Structure formats: C-alpha cells, structure tokens
C-alpha cells in the first residue's frame, strides 16, 4: 500500500494527479461509503454524497496541509457533506431533523438495499432518536470500529467527551430496545 505522504504529493502534482486519485478512490471508497451510508441510510443518497466527497477532496487537495491524517481529513469532508445533505433534504421536505430521521428509518422497510431483520431495524430506529453527535460517535465506534483517537481527530473532539457520548448513546439504545 502506498504511503500517505507519497499519495498526497502525487495528488498535488498535475502529472501524477489522475493516477493517484484512482488509488485514493480504490483505497477509501468502501470505508467512506459505509460511513456516509450510516448517516444518510439510503443507497442513492449515499452514492451522491460519496461522489461529492471525492470531488471535493480532488478540488481541495492543494489546501490539505497535512496537519491531520489524509483519511481523517476525508472522513471529516464526508461527515460534513452528509450532514449538509440531510439539512438541505429536511429543508426541501419542510420537516425538522427529528421528523426527517423518522421518515428515513420508515423508508428502510421498503428499501431494496436494506435486508436487515427486525432487530436491525429497531436498532436503526433507536439510533435515529439520538442527538447528532451521539449518532455519529455510536456509528463510528460500533459499526466502523474506529478507535476513539481516530474519531477524535475526525470530529475534532476530545477522547473524554467521545467516551461520554458513546456511553450515553449505548444507554439510550439499550433502554429503547428494552421497551415493548
């Protein structure tokens, strides 16, 4: 696997940019896709956001100073793109954030690209009820199995705060699943 610094250098040079970008897509497409998909839930929306994310990375690579890792920077772009997408979607539908998430989970039952069982659907309902930050932290820790240090770098939060958020999220989800 190509070193991150080398890849960044190649992305910044016009003669090697195209090839390096292909490598970048191949390396990160699946990780970023699943990160986005868990935020927007629907495949078509995830596809749109993922493409926008890579296009933004391509156009802004010259502004990448290397203060953080490349993948953290890309994750941050993907997260911001996903949240912006949901905001504009809620504006377009004339609903607030909570109503939008309820609708998104309801739509999962008819989604051809969702084959989750009853428990998985209920888990998604529980996640949808969480505040934005807890939702992100829970998905990144539980599904993506990222380390707290990695999540902290991506979301620009402290590890202590993240642990508290994750703990609260787990507690709320457990309570929700115990209901019924």
């Amino acid at each position, binding site marked *: 696997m190509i070193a991150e610094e080398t890849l960044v250098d190649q992305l910044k040079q016009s003669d090697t940019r195209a090839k390096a970008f*292909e490598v970048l*897509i191949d390396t990160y497409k699946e990780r970023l896709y*699943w990160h986005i*998909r*868990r935020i927007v*839930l629907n*495949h078509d929306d995830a596809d749109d956001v993922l493409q926008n994310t890579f296009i933004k990375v*391509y156009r802004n690579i010259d502004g990448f100073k290397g203060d953080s890792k490349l993948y953290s920077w890309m994750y941050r772009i993907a997260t911001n793109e996903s949240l912006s997408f949901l905001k504009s979607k809620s504006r377009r539908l004339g609903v607030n954030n909570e109503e939008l998430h309820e609708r998104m989970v309801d739509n999962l039952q008819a989604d051809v*690209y969702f084959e989750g069982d009853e428990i*998985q659907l209920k888990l998604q309902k529980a996640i949808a009820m969480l505040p934005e930050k807890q939702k992100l932290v829970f998905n990144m820790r539980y599904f993506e199995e990222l380390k707290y240090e990695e999540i902290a770098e991506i979301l620009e939060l402290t590890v202590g705060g993240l642990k508290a958020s994750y703990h609260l999220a787990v507690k709320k989800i457990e309570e929700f699943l115990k209901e019924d």
Partner: protein
Amino acid sequence: MSNLGKNNNFKIPKDYFDEFKGELMAKLNEEDSDLSLSKEYHNGGFKVPHNYFETLGERIASKIEPEKGKVIQLRPYRKYYIAAASIAAILVIALSVKLTTGKTPTFETLGSNDIENYFENHEMDFTDNELAELLPVQEVGINDILTQEINQERIVDYLDDTIEDLQELNNVYDEE
C-alpha cells in the same frame, strides 16, 4: 489400501473419497454465503448494488472536469464601467420614483380642468349659496363667472322688474 491398517473394521460408503472433494467445495461455498451474510449483518443490514464499488471510480472521474488554462480578460476595466452604469441607473430610477410618488398634491398644484372634471363627475351636496361662499368673491370679476357679457341696459331692466324700489337699492350701495 495400506493406509487403512491391519485391524481396520470400519467401512466407508462406496465412492466416498471420490465425492469428498465435491462435497467439501459445496460446503465451503455455503460457508462463503454465510460469511457474506454475516458481513451484511455487520453492515446493519445495508447492501449495495452489484458492482457498485467497481464502477464508482469511473463515475467520479467523469464528473471531474479537465483542468482549463487560466482565462485572461481582454478588457478588465469594462466590468467597472458596467457596475458604475448600473449604480447610476438604479439611483436615477429610485430618485424619480421618490419624486413622483412622494409629492403630496395641494389645491394650487391641481389643474383647473382636474377640478372641473371632479365637480362634473361627482355628485355634490353643495347648494349654490354654499358654493358661492367658498369662492373668494373679492378676486372674482363678473366675467369670470359669466361666459356671455350682459349689457348694462338689460341689467337695469332686470333690476327694475325684480326690485320694488330701485332708488332704495342705490341708497344702500351709497352707504356702503
């Protein structure tokens, strides 16, 4: 058959070893499908279309336009002229609108035709005497009201017919 040993009493089904490889591969394929299910389960039940990730790179690349050379404007000052002209036009329109709409009409600024038309087109409840009181008599001459000039003889005849004592009227006039 030396692998069986001397005291081997166990038997195997006919063609067992010939079919073993095929059965094992079938089982492994089943396990593969179970593995893919468990991967989906780990993804929370979410799936992607077939070959989605294989074609993603091409689709993104097609959306990125090739870099273009820097465009140099031939007459860069032109945009300042356009901006200045636009601002001037907006100011002129704004002022003219303010001048025409902001003015409160007064009696002096009304044209006499406008007043006449108003009186003609609107039913007024004024009597002749009330209207006469509104008119500034000192500044109005007889010819401002009458369109036809009446000669003095006819006036004297009229007064003679309507007023009993014409001499008395002359006395009132003299006293004033």
